[in-house]
């Protein structure tokens, strides 16, 4: 007779139960795989470098494989499940019609080495997306090779090097505001530049005087996000551009926040020379749990010749691949995250000009409205009007109750919302960076506000329980310190 106490390997709907690993579900000789018998005469090849035994992969049935990953999916929050006001990430609704496009066998099953005349539709996708992107950003041409924002940054910085190199002097420094996203300085270093930080002023914007002081002939350029990571529009942007251009420096636009100004203002008109966009933010392609994204880089006229190649272009006899005259070379093995570009184009064409502008209007409206609703409860460190997102501070809450920004974030999880971005940007104490996006309804925005207010109220009466949040999730506060101290990065790593 079996021991009492058996339960399902993991309990969907019931929660709490850890899901076993595939290794734990594995049994020797069990299998899901199915392949035809080899239909050519098997030959003795005695190849070099062969293995005696295949690697120790798990052996599971297809039925258990399905249950395992389905249960894992049930342990994950997602845009499709609810509101995701994660600042700087633009977690808007990802239209299902774009999923349909990305699953279209006419694109999905294309090998990247297929000649251009047999992939005219794919080249057309890139050309169409490029035209729309350039019009929205005020740029001339764009490359879709960069597979994400950070890759776009590296590409842009390599373009700076090429530009200045062609002018005889490769400069050493790139300026970035102290509120910049971490990928900016990291990309600067990767590109072989020195990152020089420009402090923000009391208004949360670039300090013009500090900028003047930092600009010299050795400055290759300035990287800027506008609206910046505080969700504020850099009011002096035109002057900033002038200062940098005076020394022939280049202005790089980090497009992570492009959602706020779509069709309303264009980086090109602000004086930017290089613009990367995050299609996985502004253009509604899903984040896939961390990727794939797409970070196309668009540039002004005088930088086109340096773009990575090949570029898809329209010729009289159809679409062709072209190599820019002084291209910096490849930044991706093929054409970038092409299917993500296809999704984005589907979105752009569905919305069209008016719809794209509406994205900016309503993302800003939702953020401004939400900020207004919580402004009495949380400090808003800067009084400029926010754009598509805003940064609130839990500093006062912490001083008064000991409840920190992280606790507020975890409490939101209990209330069924995803948490905001916390502790970024670094210039704000106990930062809560909140971006509702334009696809959330007014009811949802008001519910998020009410939740934030309720958490502050709980913090006053029962700080411990807020500090113990979340209470209703499958796990609570995993021990990050332990994970880093004794890294367990795979099954072998024990447990």
């Amino acid at each position: 007779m079996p021991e009492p106490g058996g339960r399902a390997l993991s309990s969907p709907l019931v929660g709490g139960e850890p899901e076993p690993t595939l290794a734990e579900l594995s049994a020797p000789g069990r299998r899901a795989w199915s392949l035809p018998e080899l239909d050519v005469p098997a030959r003795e090849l005695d190849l070099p470098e062969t293995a005696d035994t295949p690697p120790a992969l798990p052996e599971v049935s297809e039925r258990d494989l399905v249950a395992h990953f389905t249960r894992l999916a049930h342990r994950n929050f997602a845009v499709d499940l609810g509101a995701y006001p994660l600042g700087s990430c633009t977690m808007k609704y990802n239209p299902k019609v774009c999923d349909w496009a990305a699953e279209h066998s006419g694109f999905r099953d294309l090998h990247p080495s297929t000649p251009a005349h047999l992939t005219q539709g794919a080249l057309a996708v890139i050309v169409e997306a490029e035209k729309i992107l350039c019009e929205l950003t005020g740029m001339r041409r764009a490359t879709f090779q960069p597979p994400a924002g950070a890759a776009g940054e590296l590409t842009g910085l390599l373009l700076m090097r090429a530009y200045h190199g062609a002018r005889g002097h490769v400069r050493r420094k790139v300026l970035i505001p102290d509120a910049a996203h971490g990928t900016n300085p990291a990309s600067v270093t990767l590109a072989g530049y020195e990152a020089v930080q420009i402090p923000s002023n009391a208004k949360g914007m670039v300090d013009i005087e500090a900028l003047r002081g930092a600009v010299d002939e050795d400055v290759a350029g300035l990287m800027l996000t506008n609206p910046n990571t505080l969700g504020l529009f850099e009011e002096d942007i035109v002057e900033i551009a002038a200062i940098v251009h005076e020394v022939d420096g280049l202005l790089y636009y980090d497009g992570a926040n492009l959602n706020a100004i779509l069709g309303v203002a264009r980086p090109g008109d602000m004086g930017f020379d290089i613009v990367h966009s995050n299609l996985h933010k502004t253009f509604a392609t899903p984040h896939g749990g961390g990727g794939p994204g797409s970070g196309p880089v668009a540039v002004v006229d005088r930088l086109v010749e340096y773009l990575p190649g090949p570029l898809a272009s329209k010729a009289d006899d159809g679409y062709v691949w072209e190599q820019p005259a002084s291209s910096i070379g490849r930044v991706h093995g093929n054409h970038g995250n092409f299917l993500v570009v296809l999704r984005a184009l589907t979105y752009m064409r569905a919305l069209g000009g008016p719809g794209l502008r509406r994205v900016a209007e309503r993302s800003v409206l939702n953020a401004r409205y939400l900020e207004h609703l919580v402004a009495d409860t949380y400090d808003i460190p800067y009084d400029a009007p926010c754009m598509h997102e805003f940064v609130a501070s839990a500093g006062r809450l912490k001083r008064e109750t000991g409840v920190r920004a992280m606790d507020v974030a975890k409490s939101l999880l209990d209330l069924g919302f995803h948490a905001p971005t916390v502790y970024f940007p670094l210039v704000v104490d106990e930062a809560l960076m909140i971006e509702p996006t334009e696809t959330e309804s007014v009811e949802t925005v008001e519910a998020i506000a009410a939740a934030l207010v309720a958490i502050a109220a709980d913090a006053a009466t029962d700080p411990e329980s807020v500090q113990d949040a979340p209470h209703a999730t499958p796990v609570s506060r995993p021990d990050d310190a332990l994970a880093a101290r004794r890294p367990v990065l795979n099954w072998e790593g024990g447990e």
Partner: protein
Amino acid sequence: MDFTPHTDAEVARMLERLGMTEPSDLFAHLPAEVRVTGALDLPAPLSELEVMAHVDALAALNAADLVCFAGGGIYDHHLPPVVRALTLRPEFVTSYTPYQSEVAQGVLQALFEYQSMISAITGLPVANASLYDGPTSGLEAVNLAVAATRRTTVWVSRALNPHTRAVIDTFAAARDLTVVEHPVVGGRTAWTEADPPAAIVFGQPNFLGVIEDYDAAVAAAHEAGGLAVADVDPMLLGILRSPGSAGCDIAFAEGQPLGNPMSFGGPVLGVFATTAALMRRIPGRLSGATVDREGRRAYTLTLRTREQDIRREKASSNICTNQTLNAIGAAVHLAWLGPDGLAEVGRQSVQKAHYLAKRLEQIAGVRLAVDAAFAREFPVLLPIDPGEVVDAMAERGFLAGIPLSDRYPELPGGLLVAATEKRTRAELDAYADALEEVIADA
């Protein structure tokens, strides 16, 4: 289409609360000179039916149904429906990077299992949660090696995937690294003397499909005090020695064959694994196992101090968004295959490549470009221009392969041909017959 839920009444109500009347009031504080005044030159909105018709029309201009014999990193393997069904679960597709681990255990555990299986097939204990693709992983490997060895020279095999080489060159130019190319002799790389390298980078099998000598490469690297970096074919790791067991310090790969459609080359994924010694230098995210407050097993992103958001300009890499969903696809596929399935895919792909090679050799004017042990891909020399052959073969329903001549002038008429377990004998024979015809007609 319009995905914003706001009705005009709601917009009016919200604006009123903000003391405004027009949506444009929201942007009143922007400098006038940067505000768009006239209409931009953008297409009109399309309804769902119209946008779908447009995508259909563009798709119709692609020859996506050619029977594929092209490879070079992207291969047409059997992709089981179950792999797509699980990978495309919306909870995975529409979630962000799992920073809030309490509501991201699904993605975190999936990545932990991906890392575990990548370690299993590469024989290297530390695998990250994916990079962009094979070639950019090569860049990261070089960057890691340069930082770890403080050297600025890199040795690469001439038979390294040309796209990987190109990405490394782009990076090297900016960073003033010296890339020393080592020649191919009889299909394999001959490692000669040169300045001590940060790393030596080679394909296993190399771009010409030939299986390199691991010991020679690893010895060359280690004797010179550099890291041995192998660019491997994941679908062959069921039958070939693992780079880890061969002594490599870093293995990377174009991960597309693991659970991902060819996708015109993207999104795919970069597989990246290294030794315990280099753990704290590895680029990208790592999912680690730990326990939660109640002692329950839990997963979290770990060793974060390598990463850009914490370490900023001192980070080991600038990568943030990676290819998580593609990595989940790879994990599901590897688990579906298991040890025997992966070995069988490799075995059949190799057998079919050799069957095809034998068939092609019998065609007048065609011969193998190398006389060395190849695995599932091989170069043939054709009596006529490979580009024209590819076009003519396409008319017969085949994607014949990848012309080599532009990258390897030393192989005039060279065409790189690949096979997978998916190609039936009938397709292999039809391919050979068609090629014979094409050459005869020329």
